[in-house]
């Protein structure tokens, strides 16, 4: 059990507190400003890597690549995406959370708390799939340019294998 628990960075062996704050400081995010975002948060909270604040409100972690490099620099709050942050906007998110205001992930649902996300992960499901916006302008960048330039994929041919009994033939 210990061998497994110590292997994976997401298994925390100390209390994390209410909100887990991750800042990507892998190369791309770091160079595009993630280092400055991390420094600003660390200074604001008065904690370092893998440390909780005294009031148990936040836990700060330098995280690795979040598969959101198109949205660098990336921060996560309870593992929900906070894309394209700056030192100022990142600290502002923390302030709003601390005041108990509603904060939404930039590509995902309303921020809950760390425990709630852990439950989502444990059951690999929750009822929030319909909440929030998961597709943004950067994910549509190519589609937008293609539409502007009148580009598209080659036309879809007529079905190669006829499937007469299928109701889903019309398109």
């Amino acid at each position, binding site marked *: 059990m210990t061998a497994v628990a110590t292997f994976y960075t997401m298994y925390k062996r100390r209390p994390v507190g209410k909100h887990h704050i991750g800042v990507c400081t892998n190369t791309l995010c770091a160079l*595009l400003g993630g280092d*400055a975002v991390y420094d600003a948060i660390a200074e604001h909270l008065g904690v370092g890597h893998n440390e909780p604040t005294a009031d148990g409100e936040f836990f700060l972690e330098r995280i690795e690549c979040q598969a959101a490099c198109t949205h660098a620099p990336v921060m996560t709050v309870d593992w929900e995406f906070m894309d394209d942050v700056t030192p100022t906007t990142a600290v502002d998110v923390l302030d709003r959370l601390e005041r108990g205001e509603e904060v939404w992930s930039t590509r995902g649902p309303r921020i809950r708390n760390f425990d709630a996300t852990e439950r989502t992960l444990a059951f690999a499901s929750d009822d929030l799939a319909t909440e929030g916006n998961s597709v943004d302008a950067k994910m*549509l960048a190519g589609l937008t340019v293609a539409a502007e330039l009148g*580009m598209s994929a080659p036309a879809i041919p007529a079905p190669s294998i006829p499937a007469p009994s299928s109701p889903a033939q019309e398109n």
Partner: protein
Amino acid sequence: MTLTPVITEHWNDPTLYTLDGYRSHGGYRALATALKSDPDAVIATVKDSGLRGRGGAGFPTGLKWSFVPQNDGKPHYLVVNADESEPGACKDIPIMMANPHALVEGVIITSFAIRANHAFIYIRGEVPNAIRKVAFAVEQARAAGLIGKNILGSGFDLEIVVHSGAGAYICGEETALLDSLEGYRGQPRLKPPFPAVAGLYASPTVINNVETIANIPYIIDRGVDWFRQFGTEKSPGFKVFAVSGHVNRPGIYEAPLGITMRELLEYAGGMRGGVDVKFWLPGGSSVPMLTAEHLDIPMTYEDMAAAGTMLGTGTPMVFDSTVSVVKAVTRWLEFYKHESCGKCTPCREGTYWITGVLEKFEHGHGSQEEVETLTHLCNQIAGRSFCALGDAAATPYPAALKYFRDEFDAATHTPVDETFDPRASYVFAEAAAR
């Protein structure tokens, strides 16, 4: 070469992630076609399409499927590698958040083809929003009778399990992923036996990347001839390119394989502030970097290999001349050191030593002798560990040295942050906290 949205074609439909939304664009038509066909015919179609794995290695997908022994009396498994953790790779997570049913439909068709009644989608734990979208799609597909017993009256049964990872890059390595799925530490296995023969629970297993599987419905629905209109003979098809870094419009651009970085850059609005491309990586930090000289090379598996690099995940990271290559490489090595699973000594110890020496350079304390030491260390790791993580860790430095030797020379006396003001690389204008 033009942009050709296929997997991304309907991402601007906010209902696409739902079953009804996906079906309104022809979704699950391919499943009906496949189930009326024969598993071997589906494998043959995918083989003929020439589809190659989109996870990085580019192995022919149909061929991989055909390695699964048939009529062996053992359960077969399909495992989808959705552990997208490669620095720079950011295309599978968007696919799962925007078009999860393309993945689910692909999983059902693939499972039918390889005669698996159980499929697993292993999604890295750091992205709950991708996990809940895929779980929702699976749930809706199950409620509609597309997963479960006797799917569409075909007699084919399938269960799909969505599994969350727990934060380990190594679990993107297929055999480490299997160990992780079985509940152990995610450490790579020695091959052979290959997963097609003895994979999950020692049974024949196919492991495919998310984007690979998301291609399947389109190939089955539209046919091999249609698919082969895209790309080249050796690299057919389209690719979800995720362009990041110092470009004006970073984002997802879907185009045929064979498009050049120069064309992608143009679609992405060019370089920020008109500053030159200094170096770029075609697909993740594990592939050797290229420079501005290489912008016209077609982005195919074969052309990238000929240029001394790899297409990898097809998610180019582009850096401009404000960036210190020494700092970039050091940060990547810190990553590999952190993520080395510790099983093989060359990788475990080597990443530790390389990182330590590189950090000296970052602070301006490197030496000419250590330039050679680093080369020696990389040679001691490459090809000497079970999996590709060791090879990947030995990749950034030699490529950087080849093109930017002068920066390592400068880092023997001057800290890189003095030569390259970090603030110049930031994508926001506000003053840094430091």
